[in-house]
């Protein structure tokens, strides 16, 4: 309701909505194209594997397959932190991360045992193999059995490994802690922060004055500031780190966004007041049959809000990564290097700039919508403007 009241924010939101059309929708068709190719190639590969025949792919196909595999590998989490690999010598530059498995007791070992999925790791008499980023229990020779959809049927132990994403999360958390505790300390010296704090303070004020207070209200916003600020800076920093050649993709991982959305959902539901529940289960101002029909819709509505939140962040960041990597891959796949190189670099630069904006916007939107949902749950309703409020609520949902 706040968005629609302020035209600037409406424009911003509309812009963001359109942005995803530009930055996401088109490439999605592209990547779908690639996916189809991949599926085709993969199917072919399994086919050949199944028939124990070595059917040579053309070099071009091989390259495309490699690029797709690389992008998919990048988007996924991994058990070691690889910066780059030397394919000819089979060397991987990076470092291993600890693997923690829950399989008849806790099994902790270094991911170097997998040799990047090339070997079977033996731990306490159990054999594990890394297959497409997931750990499967196997035998000494590393046999993996497949079902008809080419999904491995081997047992999967519960995997609590410190993966690349967990490791990145820890690093980012440490950076955040360092940045903001030093900002907090700088206030002890004087009322105005010095150095980097000068950059951070306006951002905090921005979240407070533009996000929390307008959506939640002057009286109640204080309680939720901790969550909103943490989430905003965490998502933003992770998005930005995703743009670096470190090759991490944390916010583009569905498990991470699900977790963030669940936090928002829990906070919303647990801070909700009587009015909020009243509007969900027994909508005031409508006839009784309507009340009964509306209740399940409203209950579903509480779930779709965080669901939209998690999908939006995941889709935007994943799309950004896919687009940028695909554009860079043009150099390797294309036939004419002289023509492809400037196009590829130019487009990558352009999309990168947009992605920098998206990195901020997605963090902002996640925080903004979280505070909006929290605001809806905690606000005091004025019965005079019920129709008004509900109308806007609907508009809000449809826009963002």
């Amino acid at each position, binding site marked *: 309701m706040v968005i629609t009241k302020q035209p600037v924010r409406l424009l911003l939101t509309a812009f963001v909505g359109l942005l995803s059309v530009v930055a996401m929708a088109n490439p999605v068709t592209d990547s779908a194209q690639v996916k189809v190719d991949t599926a085709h190639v993969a199917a072919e590969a399994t086919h050949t594997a199944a028939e124990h025949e070595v059917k040579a792919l053309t070099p071009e196909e091989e390259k495309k397959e490699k690029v797709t595999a690389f992008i998919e590998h990048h988007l996924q989490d991994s058990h070691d932190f690889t910066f780059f690999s030397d394919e000819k010598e089979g060397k991987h530059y990076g470092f291993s991360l600890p693997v923690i498995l829950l399989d008849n007791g806790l099994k902790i070992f270094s991911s170097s045992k997998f040799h990047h999925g090339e070997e079977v790791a033996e731990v306490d008499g159990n054999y594990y193999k890394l297959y497409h980023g997931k750990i499967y229990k196997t035998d000494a020779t590393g046999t993996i059995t497949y079902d008809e959809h080419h999904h491995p049927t081997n047992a999967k132990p519960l995997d609590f490994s410190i993966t690349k994403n967990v490791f990145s999360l820890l690093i980012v*958390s440490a950076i955040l*802690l360092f940045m903001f505790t030093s900002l907090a300390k700088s206030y002890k010296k004087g009322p105005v922060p010095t150095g980097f704090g000068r950059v951070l303070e306006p951002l905090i004020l921005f979240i407070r004055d533009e996000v929390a207070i307008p959506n939640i209200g002057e009286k109640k916003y204080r309680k939720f500031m901790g969550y909103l600020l*943490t989430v905003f800076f*965490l998502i933003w920093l992770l998005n930005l780190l995703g743009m670096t050649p470190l090759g991490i993709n944390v916010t583009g991982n*569905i498990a991470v966004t699900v977790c963030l959305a669940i*936090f928002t959902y829990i906070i919303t539901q647990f801070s909700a007041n009587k009015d909020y529940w009243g509007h969900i289960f027994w909508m005031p101002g409508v006839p009784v049959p309507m009340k009964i029909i509306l209740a399940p819709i409203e209950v579903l509505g509480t779930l779709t809000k965080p669901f939209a939140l998690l999908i939006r962040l995941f889709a935007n960041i994943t799309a950004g990564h896919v687009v940028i990597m695909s554009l860079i891959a043009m150099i390797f796949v294309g036939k004419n290097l002289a023509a492809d190189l400037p196009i590829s670099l130019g487009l990558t630069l352009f999309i990168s700039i947009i992605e920098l904006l998206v990195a901020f916007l997605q963090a902002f939107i996640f925080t903004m919508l979280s505070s909006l949902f929290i605001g809806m749950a905690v606000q005091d309703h004025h019965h005079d403007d019920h129709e008004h409020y509900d109308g806007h609520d609907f508009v809000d949902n449809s826009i963002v």
Partner: protein
Amino acid sequence: MEKLINDFSFGLFFWQAIILLVLILLLVKFAWKPIMESITAREEGIRDAIASAETARKEMLNLKADNQRLLDEARAERDTMLKEAREIKEKMIADAKSEAQIQGAKMIEQAKATIEGEKNAALAELKTQVSGLSLEIAEKLLKGELSNKASQTVLVEKMLDEVKLN
């Protein structure tokens, strides 16, 4: 959708939840709380400073008016004091003048009386001396006349002449 569900890693979700929870708690305790408090305190400080500056300005104006009033009062008081002093001075001068006149008159009167007294005394003394001299002369004459008849007659005649002349 199937791919998404397949990609969902429970381990990552678990760690993310723990890290996020711990991060929120740590940041709230060590960063957001002190930062927000400092910012709020600073903003309140600024608000207070502006308000107190305003009151100080008003007080200053009041003080100025007070000062002006005091100055006016002091000036008026000074004027009256000066006026009184002038009046007293004039009165004193007038008093002194009249006193001096009275005193002078008195002194003149006394002097006059003294002079009169002295004069009377001097006259009296003169009279005695003159009468004494006259007696002596008369004595001497009588002595001379009585010794010489002729001269007595001359004398009487002379005296008679003198008396006639007188």
